[in-house]
């Protein structure tokens, strides 16, 4: 009996340490922006909104939010449109080598969006004249995310019986009417999940805009936050923490809203 108590006490201690490791940064994120003496330790001091005030006085902080929105929305649109069209074909038509093609795409997408391919991606963007443009950033981030999105959407579409589309065609709808009245409404859950995931991943992407964009004016929030220093050359922790909290909010709100409306679950098997 004692042995069991001791071992479960050890378990709890171990798990508490692990939990603290993950929770501490989150607490820091929510406490430090409101502190009058922000530091790397978690201490509130006297609560103040001054840090947020300095964020809103910094023009770079404001327009880089706008840049983030442009990039994230662009990536989301490109991913959703390309991935859902491709996933539909992969799901509904089986051509020779289609499974192999998906496998290869996923394999290489992880390389493409990873650090290893940064030099060739940079060269590619230069030769396409897309360097220092949103389009270059959008296409590069989307290109990395689309294959995985195709894969997820394909399994989602696979679970929607084909007979709904066939019934729609027989009932007299054209292919585009079938798509808009039947197929998209049935698959909207999967598409919204993909849209949210790609929005969040583009919103948080640091490396690709950092490398492909060269003027401060075009930096998204993820890169701007990297440039907050005091005149002394030290990181301005008050500004960084306040900005980080603002930067996190859209993602948190996005998750909550989607979770409330749809719930994050991959199912589409609607019984006929």
């Amino acid at each position, binding site marked *: 009996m004692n042995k069991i108590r001791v071992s479960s006490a050890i378990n709890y201690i171990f798990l508490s340490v692990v939990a603290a490791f993950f929770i501490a940064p989150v607490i820091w994120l929510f406490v430090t922006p409101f502190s009058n003496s922000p530091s790397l330790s978690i201490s509130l001091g006297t609560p103040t909104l001054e840090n947020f005030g300095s964020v809103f006085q910094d023009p770079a902080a404001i327009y880089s939010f706008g840049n983030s929105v442009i990039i994230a929305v662009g990536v989301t649109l490109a991913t959703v449109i390309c991935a859902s069209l491709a996933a539909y074909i992969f799901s509904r038509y089986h051509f020779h080598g289609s499974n192999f093609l998906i496998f290869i795409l996923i394999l290489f997408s992880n390389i493409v969006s990873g650090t290893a391919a940064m030099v060739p991606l940079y060269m590619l963007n230069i030769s396409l004249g897309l360097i220092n443009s949103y389009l270059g950033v959008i296409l590069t981030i989307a290109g990395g995310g689309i294959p995985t999105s195709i894969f997820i959407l394909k399994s989602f579409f696979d679970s929607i*019986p084909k*007979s*709904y589309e*066939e*019934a*729609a*065609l*027989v*009932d*007299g*709808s*054209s*292919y585009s*009417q079938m798509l808009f*009245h*039947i197929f998209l*409404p*049935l698959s909207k859950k999967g598409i919204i999940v993909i849209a949210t995931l790609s929005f969040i991943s583009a919103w948080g992407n640091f490396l690709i805009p950092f490398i492909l964009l060269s003027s401060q004016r075009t930096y998204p929030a993820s890169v701007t936050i990297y440039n907050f220093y005091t005149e002394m050359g030290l990181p301005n922790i008050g500004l960084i923490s306040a900005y980080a909290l603002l930067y996190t909010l859209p993602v948190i709100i996005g998750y909550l809203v989607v979770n409330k409306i749809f719930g994050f679950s991959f199912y589409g098997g*609607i*019984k*006929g």
Partner: protein
Amino acid sequence: MAWIELENITKNFGKVSVIKNLSLQIEKGEFVSILGPSGCGKTTLLRLIAGLEVADKGKINIAGTDVTFSPPNVRKIAMVFQNYALYPHMTVFKNISYPLFIKKIPADEIKQRVNTIADNLKISPLLDRYPQQISGGQQQRVAVARAMIQTPNVFLLDEPLSNLDAMMRIEARGFLKYLLDKIGTTTIYVTHDQSEAMALANRIVVMQNGIIQQVGSPKDIYDKPSNIFVASFVGNPPMNLLQATINSTQVKIGDQYLDIKESITNLRKPLQNGKVYLGIRPEHISIYHEDSKNDGPIVEGEIFVSEPLGFETIITVIVSDQQIKVIKFGGSKNLKPGEKIKLQFKKNKIYIFEFETGYRINEIQGDDYDDH
């Protein structure tokens, strides 16, 4: 020109040949049932007519138009799917009205037509529900309503009763026949259930392995099966098929000789090596007593098992190592397994099938459908 014409249709899925050079003509207003075991190509045939598959070879005409390569939406057809395929994100009302909505018919006309058809099919109280919220039988009616709201060239029904339980199925079958008779639209009904085909259709197309085995009225299919497959597929229990040898006057089953002169007078083909299948339906066999009138050849056997079903009893008898099923109406007293029994085959109901090809080679006389 027939209303629906299929000309030399061939369809392969990869290396599997599903429909083999099939031709079929269907007249306006006919109720045709396509009957066959699973995998015989009957659903593929229906999908070819619907335009959901495209034939590899051949031509399809519907109402005088060549639609071989037309998409489903221009063929003016209506279809009831096996799983009904009711749109899960639409209410019953929206489901039924979808074909009209697509044609941009004014809202009040849609409403009026949906209400009429819902009244007819007794589903008016369900119009605001979603498909997942109604029973299988109700879903089937909604699927039929969605098909009937249009005035199509042809109704296509793909095993519409197979998802219902046995009790519902009989009820839905009768209702479906009543409805389709009333509208009179050309109908093609795919089923693997011979009783559905017999009960509903004016004409039955029996298929096996992508080939039409026989086309005819239910009565023809039942009384004059053209081969062993049709004979054994239609009827419940199916026709008894006994291996036998034959000469010009008698047939030999095991070591018993049967006098079947009358059944082999009108042979279409000369007898070859004498090996044949002798076919006789369970309801055309009676138990022979000393005082029975002499109505056909008699065989002796031993009762294997008897299964009383209430109104009738199915008796399985072993005759020279082959099983024969017999339907006896009325009581089943004195039918104990192991007992010896004499069976009499009705003489004008004996079928002779060629052993090698399975084709029937004797002409069947008489037109009486059922005369026990």
